[in-house]
């Protein structure tokens, strides 16, 4: 009898395995059911986004938009046949890539994120448990890196320490004035709103309101810290729970309800057990409600 030699692993492979282990669950857990539900929710998200036109439509004719929505609907239907599920995801990737080609350079960052997610689902796949472990860890890595960079970019651009950016948003967007009206004095809101952005010297576009400065600093510190808390197993549940109200809070100012759904779908990937399968109907109801709202109130500021 000859013993089979153990597979030789290079240092790079060891490092990769360690990284995957950091972002993985207990070795006994099965990631495949949650990945299936995650994929389904993602496809529904894409279909709802495209069908309701929740993207910059400057260069996309309505007929083409409906065609892309029909392609995504076809991909969704195909996905239910397990052996074609990956083909369906590849089809959705092509449809979204085509859409973003038309929309570029107005492509939103959440659209880039959707493309990355689809690319990973296609290239890594989930046909075996081992693939599922790698896919889940990589998806978690993408989410953690993205959240970290949203915080780091705010710090690097230097507009959050003294609440300069939020003050500018209050000046420009009524919904931000509404949200921060709770913590910024009314006369300060009025002062900011009367400033003219195209008049050199207008300002100062910042506020001394302590709670606004506190909120501004909390935003990027939260975004810098949350990826570590999501990746570290003992704090994963707490981090997911913390991320949910943060996502909801963003919706009051940014009103990106479709991205909110995507972010919750991604946040649940960090929960130690499969929540996606259980929450599937909640997601479907959420996107159905969003789509109905978009069709009923096409002028509403809701993306």
């Amino acid at each position: 009898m000859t013993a089979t030699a153990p597979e030789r692993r290079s240092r790079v492979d060891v490092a990769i395995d360690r990284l995957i282990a950091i972002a993985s669950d207990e070795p006994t857990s099965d990631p495949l059911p949650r990945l299936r539900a995650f994929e389904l929710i993602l496809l529904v998200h894409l279909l709802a986004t495209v069908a309701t036109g929740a993207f910059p439509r400057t260069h996309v004719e309505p007929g083409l938009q409906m065609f892309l929505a029909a392609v995504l609907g076809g991909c969704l239907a195909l996905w239910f046949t397990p052996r074609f599920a990956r083909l369906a995801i590849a089809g959705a990737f092509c449809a979204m890539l085509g859409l973003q080609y038309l929309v570029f350079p107005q492509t939103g960052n959440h659209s880039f994120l959707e493309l990355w997610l689809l690319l990973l689902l296609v290239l890594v796949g989930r046909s075996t448990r081992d693939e599922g472990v790698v896919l889940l860890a990589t998806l978690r890595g993408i989410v953690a890196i993205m959240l970290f960079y949203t915080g780091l970019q705010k710090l690097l651009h230097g507009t959050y320490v003294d609440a300069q950016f939020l003050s500018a948003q209050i000046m420009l967007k009524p919904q931000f004035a509404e949200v921060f009206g709770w913590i910024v004095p009314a006369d300060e809101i009025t002062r900011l709103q009367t400033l003219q952005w195209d008049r050199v010297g207008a300002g100062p576009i910042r506020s001394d309101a302590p709670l606004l400065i506190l909120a501004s600093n909390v935003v990027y510190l939260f975004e810098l810290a949350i990826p570590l808390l999501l990746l570290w197993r003992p704090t994963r549940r707490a981090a997911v729970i913390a991320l949910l109200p943060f996502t909801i809070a963003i919706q009051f100012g940014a009103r990106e309800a479709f991205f909110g759904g995507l972010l919750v779908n991604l946040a649940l990937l960090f929960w130690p057990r499969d929540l996606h399968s259980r929450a599937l109907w909640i997601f479907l109801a959420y996107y159905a409600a969003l789509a109905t709202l978009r069709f009923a109130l096409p002028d509403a500021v809701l993306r």
Partner: protein
Amino acid sequence: MIARRKRRLAAALLIVFTTWPLVHYQLVRVYRLDPWKFGGWAMYTVVNFLPRVEVFAMRGGERQQLGLGSHDLPASRAASEQLVFDAKFYGELADPEPLARIAASEVGGDVAIEVVITRFFVDRSSARVSATRRSFFYEPPR
């Protein structure tokens, strides 16, 4: 074996995903690209105001601003809107030459064209609106 290859592929994708925002930050700093765009996760960091584009015709030492809002110069108007769009997203990489060429042909005659792009931004230290102006000169063909 396949799993190992997949692991390497996943790691490679993560490396690209991690590296791009750093490149993006440099591109935004150097070329003033729109930080909200191009997948660098810098949305909600800086207010990116719409730039202003002005076109001047220079004939015999006189500098006259062209009314791009009027219906007399429809092609220039469209090209000017395109330049505002390009300057907002692509920053310093936006090319004013197509607008200058169209404006020169619409105005007609032996004119030089000057295109001025004004960018508004909030100065970080004073927190007041500031602006940069860049002029581009195009001589008439000889």
